[in-house]
């Protein structure tokens, strides 16, 4: 009699376990249904760029014959914005003329050379445009500024305040006249 009861009890437990397992499996099968994975290819291009703007586009000079100090009428600020690739290490701002011998001219054969045109960048010392730079004529340029490009400034901005002077001491016999010219400002990253 006891054996029969024990057997019946075991049978009941096994049946209960099987029923529970069946219910859990059925419940799980009803909650989760996955589709296949469908990929979307993403392609985002952030192009490198350098934008340069100037606060003004004209400077006048009232010259005094033979004088080393003939300041320009106004300063000009060059603001450079950039977005660059990781491989770029440096951004440079240049000022240049297309000719070193005739930076300014009266059109009658009398010239002011680039060596007598000076720029002070950010209140620094005046420097003549006598270097051969990335742009412009030979010996007609000046490196205004250099910005090292690091991980923190791959995208950034920089301002350079330029003031100008014409030194007529080396050309004291320059005849009176109106001398005009074009100074070009350009940035390069590499």
């Amino acid at each position: 009699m006891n054996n029969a009861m024990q057997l019946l009890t075991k049978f009941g437990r096994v049946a209960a376990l099987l029923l529970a397992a069946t219910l859990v499996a059925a419940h799980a099968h009803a909650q989760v249904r996955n589709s296949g994975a469908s990929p979307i290819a993403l392609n985002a291009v952030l192009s490198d760029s350098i934008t340069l703007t100037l606060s003004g586009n004209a400077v006048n000079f009232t010259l005094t014959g033979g004088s080393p100090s003939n300041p320009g009428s106004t300063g000009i600020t060059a603001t450079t914005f950039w977005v660059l690739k990781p491989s770029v290490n440096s951004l440079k701002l240049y000022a240049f003329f297309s000719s070193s011998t005739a930076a300014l001219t009266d059109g009658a054969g009398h010239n002011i050379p680039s060596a007598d045109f000076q720029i002070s960048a950010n209140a620094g010392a005046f420097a003549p445009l006598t270097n051969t730079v990335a742009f412009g004529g030979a010996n007609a340029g000046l490196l205004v500024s250099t910005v090292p490009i690091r991980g923190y400034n791959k995208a950034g901005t920089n301002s350079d305040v330029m003031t100008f002077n014409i030194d007529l001491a080396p050309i004291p016999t320059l005849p009176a006249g109106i001398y005009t010219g074009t100074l070009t400002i350009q940035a390069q990253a590499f």
Partner: protein
Amino acid sequence: MHRPGLPLKEELLLPTLGGKMKTVRISWAVMVGAALALSASLASAQVNSGAQTIALNANLAESLTLNLSANNVSFTLNAGSASNPGSGTVTATTTWTLGAGRNAVNVYAYFVSAAAALTDGAAGDNIPSSAFFISDNSGTAAALTNTVAFGAANAGLRLANVPITAANRSSSRTDAMTFNINLTGGTLGQLPANTYTGTLNIQAQAL
């Protein structure tokens, strides 16, 4: 054809009887492609901004200025004497910046009247400009008897003539003047005692 279990890179380099030439060609293609990619990468590493221009306008105006070291000269006259020197030397400094079309700078001394360079005023007694002499830079003294660019007829003297060339379009010069009144000519020997005053003008002109 890719062989299962063998990496693609190794398979390309695997010498086989049928695919050896093909493998070499593929290797060259890979190298050339890599070189082109590197070249393109280097070329794209340089980025330029647009060029921004600044118009420059410099005006060197013409100028011609003359300054004197002094503005007064006194004379102690001796009746009938040829030599009545002035009390001091006056230096005229002429400074100019001239246009390319100029050829000369002249410096003149002159009176507004030839007959009455100096006068005693209401008494009507005069010393004419012909009796007034200037020695410029220790040169020979000359009377003011010429008609020049300024002043009265026959009442002037050109002190200097400076040719202007490309070498001196902006320059200067000095004229050191000493003075004398010659009281020997005509009726000047009978000039009455009195105080005679006058104004000598010095002026420069660029042509």
